[in-house]
Every structure is written in C-alpha cells, then in structure tokens.
C-alpha cells in the first residue's frame, strides 16, 4: 500500500521531469534571449533607463539599491511586510503552544558547567566579536546606497550580534533577553517607520513614497531634491533594518524557547 503510493508519486514526478526537460531541451535554444546579449528587450528597455538615470535622479550609486528602494520602493515595503508576516506567523504557530516532551528535560540551571555551547574561551571571544559585528552592521546600513549592502543585510548582522549574545554565554551569565512580543513590536515599528516615510510626502503634495516631496527640504533647488532622495532611501533602510532585526530576534526567541541543546 505504502510502496504503491510512493511509486505513484514517483511516476508523477518522472512525468513532470520528462516534460519539463523535454520542452526545455527542444525549445530552449530557440526562444529565450541569448545570455549576455545587451540588446535583448530585457536588457535594453527599462533597464537602461535605470542605469543611465539612477545616479542623477536618486543620488544612489548602487543602482540596485536605487531600483529597490526608490523606483520600486513599494515592492520593498511589502517585502519587509512579508518578513514581518513570517515572524508573526511563526509566533502564532509556535508561541505558547506546549511542546510535547519526548524525554525528561535536564535542568540546565543546576548544571552550571555543562551548558551546551559556550565555555570560557567562547565567552571571552564573543565579547570581541559582537561589537565588530554591530559596527559592521551599521556600516552596511549606511553604506548601502553607495556600495553593496542595505537594510536587510544590516538588520541580519545586528540580529546576528544579538544571537551570539543570546546563545553563546553559558546560562549562569545569560543577560537580558528581549521578549518575543517586544521583538515583534520592534519589527512592526520598523515596518511602520517605512510606511511613515512613505506617507510623509503625501502631506507635501506628493504621492506615496515620493521622496522628492519629503517635507524636509527648506529650498527646492534641484540639488536638494536629490538629497531628499538620499534621505528617503536612508530612512526606509533604517526601517528595514529595524524590522529585519526584530523579525530575526522574534523567530530566534520563539524557537529558543522550545529548544534544549542537549537533545
């Protein structure tokens, strides 16, 4: 019965593979654009506009960041929301739900020196690593528009610092833990900050996320518009960073709650 079922699945899978590979092999040469050709529609139409105008219009040297945060900033807003949402769903699914213990859990607090991770050397070294990671994270955040980097990476790095702080020290010196709910609130605040950045131009006669109309510029010279774009991109990157950080911490805490490393 069981074998029969899996064989059926196998057959179905094979059919899919055959069809997909077959079509791919037969047809692929003909209709997809040649890789590396600069004249394909994909590489020439809108893409060229971004390359030629991004620096002029958004003052962001990293064109991908310009596309991501400015031209298609609306996508990124919801990308951030997806992350927030995944943290939310993880929390809804796992938080507060009793884990069914399979074996008696060892009481870690009593057993002072046998914590799974850590040990003295790690305790010492992570103190050096964490500040570096934090600084690097902030660097990545602010440097995102000139070079590679951006809010997502920065958020991940900062959360990484927290992660080290959370899991490396042995239990006895475990320091302040950010509660799951707090982390979620931080994440939602980050995303909300993004939304606020988008809403601000609406008070100044602009559209949603129209950074050129951010109500900060005192003069309306062309230069200041470009600066406004910079400010806008920076603000949303900050929002993204905070959100990503919150999301990772929230997921981490929810999972940690249910994990014992002895297993």
């Amino acid at each position, binding site marked *: 019965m069981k074998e029969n079922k899996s064989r059926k699945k196998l057959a179905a899978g094979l059919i899919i593979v055959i069809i997909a*590979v077959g079509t791919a092999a037969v047809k692929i040469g003909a209709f997809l654009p040649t890789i590396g050709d600069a004249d394909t529609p994909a590489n020439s139409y809108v893409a060229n506009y971004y*390359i030629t105008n991004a620096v002029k219009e958004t003052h962001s040297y990293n064109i991908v960041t310009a*596309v991501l945060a400015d031209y298609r900033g609306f996508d990124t807003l919801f990308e951030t929301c997806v992350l927030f949402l995944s943290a939310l769903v993880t929390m809804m*699914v796992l938080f507060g739900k009793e884990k*069914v213990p399979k074996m008696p859990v060892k009481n870690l607090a009593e057993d002072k020196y046998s914590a799974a991770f850590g040990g003295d050397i790690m305790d010492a070294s992570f103190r050096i690593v964490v500040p570096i990671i934090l600084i690097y994270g902030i660097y990545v955040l602010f440097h995102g528009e000139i070079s590679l980097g951006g809010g997502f990476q920065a958020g991940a790095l900062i959360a990484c610092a927290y992660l080290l702080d959370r899991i490396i020290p042995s239990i006895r010196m475990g320091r302040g833990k950010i509660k799951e709910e707090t982390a979620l609130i931080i994440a939602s605040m980050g995303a909300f900050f993004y939304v606020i950045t988008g809403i601000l131009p609406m008070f100044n006669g602009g559209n949603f996320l129209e950074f050129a109309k951010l109500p900060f510029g005192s003069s309306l010279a062309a230069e200041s518009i470009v600066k406004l774009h910079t400010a806008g991109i920076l603000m949303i990157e900050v929002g993204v960073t905070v959100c990503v950080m919150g999301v990772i911490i929230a997921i981490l805490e929810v999972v940690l709650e249910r994990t014992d490393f002895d297993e």
Partner: protein
Amino acid sequence: MSELIEKLEFFLADRGIYMLTLILFAVAVYGMIACGNYMKKLMCMNMMQVSIIFFFLTFGQKNGGTLPVAIDEVLSAEAYINPLPHALMLTAIVVSLGTTGVGLALLMRIKDIYGTIEEDRITGDGGKKQ
C-alpha cells in the same frame, strides 16, 4: 576532450544555463512530489525558488558588464549588467526566506502534534479522511 569542454562552455554561455535552471526547477518539483518527508519537501521547495532566482539572473547578464554600482559617473548602459532582475530577485529571496521560515515553523508544530514529519505516517493514521 578540451574541444568538448569548449563546446559545452559555449553552449552554457549561449543558452544552456536556462536549461540548467529549468532542470533544477523540474528536479525540485519532482522532489516535492516524490519525497515523503516534509523536511525534504521543504528543501526541494527552496531549491525550486532558487532555480527561479537563477533563471531571472541569467537574462539580466551582459557580456562585459560589471556590477551595477556606478563608478565615477560612468553611465553608459553597456557598462553595467541589468539591475532590475537583481532588485526583483532580492525581493524574491526575501519572500522565499519568509515562506521557508513559515514552513519550518509549521513543521515544528506538526512534529509537536504528530510526533513525526513523515507524510505516510501522518496521513496513515487518519490524517486525510475526516
């Protein structure tokens, strides 16, 4: 032998990578259907998403193009590879991350409830029929 490799290289550089990505896609879908273990299914799902990302990135490629980070105001279109697929795929990566995260959380919950993540054992004991 070297001739063969050269041919292969040419083929891959021309259009072959599409084929590889699509094969990856097909293998992933096959895995999602055929694997009985939910964790493996999830990994196949991730593979599938990655294959799509590769697919997008391949046609954003330009011969002789560099990273789309403007250098010294060089703004001719040929100099940089297409930034749009990269931007789109950043979004897609994050989305796939979110999906995978949710999937993992669900798996943990399923493990709690059923004590297993093998499909046969879950559907076997009355999972499917009401």
